[in-house]
């Protein structure tokens, strides 16, 4: 193709690309192009290149393989014996079919079994345990606040003893605040995990 296209040819060059899109050229423009191409060697060559390119692009439709080759496991009916292939996640799909669980339950289960879900469960359990045994924990601190511990240790122990003896509102407030922050963060992480999985 000639690199020395005149201004007129530049206009036709854009029209040649648009020619192959049925609705992109007006009938007047099509007539103009039809009249110009026989008289201009560079535009004729450009049209030929574009035409070949379009034909080759159209031929790409046949490159799409059958969907069956990508659905080796899912295509089997639920409950049927399924071939175990080399695909990494085949087990996951088989278990989905075998359990017959509701998808929302499955999503909840996946969320619970995610690292974030397990962390939340562990923290909740620890928090409940700590609240339940707060009196005993306080007693341990009383014991440890003997002569063997520093003044700082004494202060901390006294504070906890005070809290565990009477003012549980402060302790509860601290727990609630920390739990809200941690659970909120973990909840967001879990949501992102579930969305991405």
């Amino acid at each position, binding site marked *: *193709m000639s690199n020395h296209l005149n201004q007129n040819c530049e206009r036709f060059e854009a029209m040649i*690309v*648009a020619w192959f*899109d049925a609705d*992109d050229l007006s009938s007047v423009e099509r007539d103009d192009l039809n009249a110009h191409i026989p008289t201009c060697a560079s535009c004729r060559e*450009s049209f030929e*290149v*574009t035409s*070949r*390119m379009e034909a*080759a*692009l*159209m*031929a*790409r*439709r046949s*490159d*799409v*393989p059958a*969907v069956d*080759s*990508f*659905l*080796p496991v*899912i*295509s*089997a*009916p*639920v409950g049927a014996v399924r071939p175990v292939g080399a*695909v*990494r*996640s085949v087990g*996951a*799909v088989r278990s*989905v*079919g075998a359990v*017959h669980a509701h*998808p*929302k339950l*499955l*999503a909840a289960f996946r969320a619970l079994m995610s690292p974030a879900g397990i962390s939340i469960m562990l923290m909740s359990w620890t928090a409940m345990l700590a609240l339940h045994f707060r009196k005993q924990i306080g007693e341990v601190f009383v014991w440890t606040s003997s002569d063997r511990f520093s003044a700082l240790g004494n202060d901390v122990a006294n504070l906890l003893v005070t809290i565990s003896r009477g003012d549980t509102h402060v302790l509860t407030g601290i727990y609630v605040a920390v739990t809200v922050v941690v659970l909120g963060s973990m909840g967001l992480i879990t949501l992102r995990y*579930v*969305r991405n*999985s």
Partner: protein
Amino acid sequence: MPHPEDSELVARALRQDERAFRDLIQRHHAMAYAAVRSVLGDRDEVQDVMQMVYLKAYQGLAGFRGDARFSTWLYQIARREALDVSSKRRVETVDVETVELAAGAHHAADAATHERSEREWIASALGEIDETYRTAIELRYMAEKSYEEISEIMSVPVGTVKTYVHRGKAEMKRILSRPAWRADASKS
């Protein structure tokens, strides 16, 4: 018999109707394949990525809320999976590719006379253009989608899709106008 809407097939698939899921995937298979190919080309990983895309779609269908079209949702999964593999592959093989490129440059003169099929030239030209243009072109030709459908899938206006396709084809044409392709064309 009229074809059921995507939303209906999704609802049936969520009730463990695997036939409905299969129909859904069948309907959008070319689009998903084109999306993966636009990122990975014709690499060996395409097969594995496609399987992963459908597994992810199957497993994540419960999370599909219907805010967007199913095709858009599937396209995003396909694209994310392909980009994920592509980025890993890039890290793993950067040295090898560098060597191959250097060798390719050395034998550039030979390449001009090397006979290649029309399809290979097109694939090669597609590989050289901007990825966004390539995606739009693959969706248009390989998946046979209209501009309106591509607009929904890629979440951009119709006019932008047309621009992507036209600019992409103009770039391809420039690449294909190089002497090597023209010389090869004259032989065939």
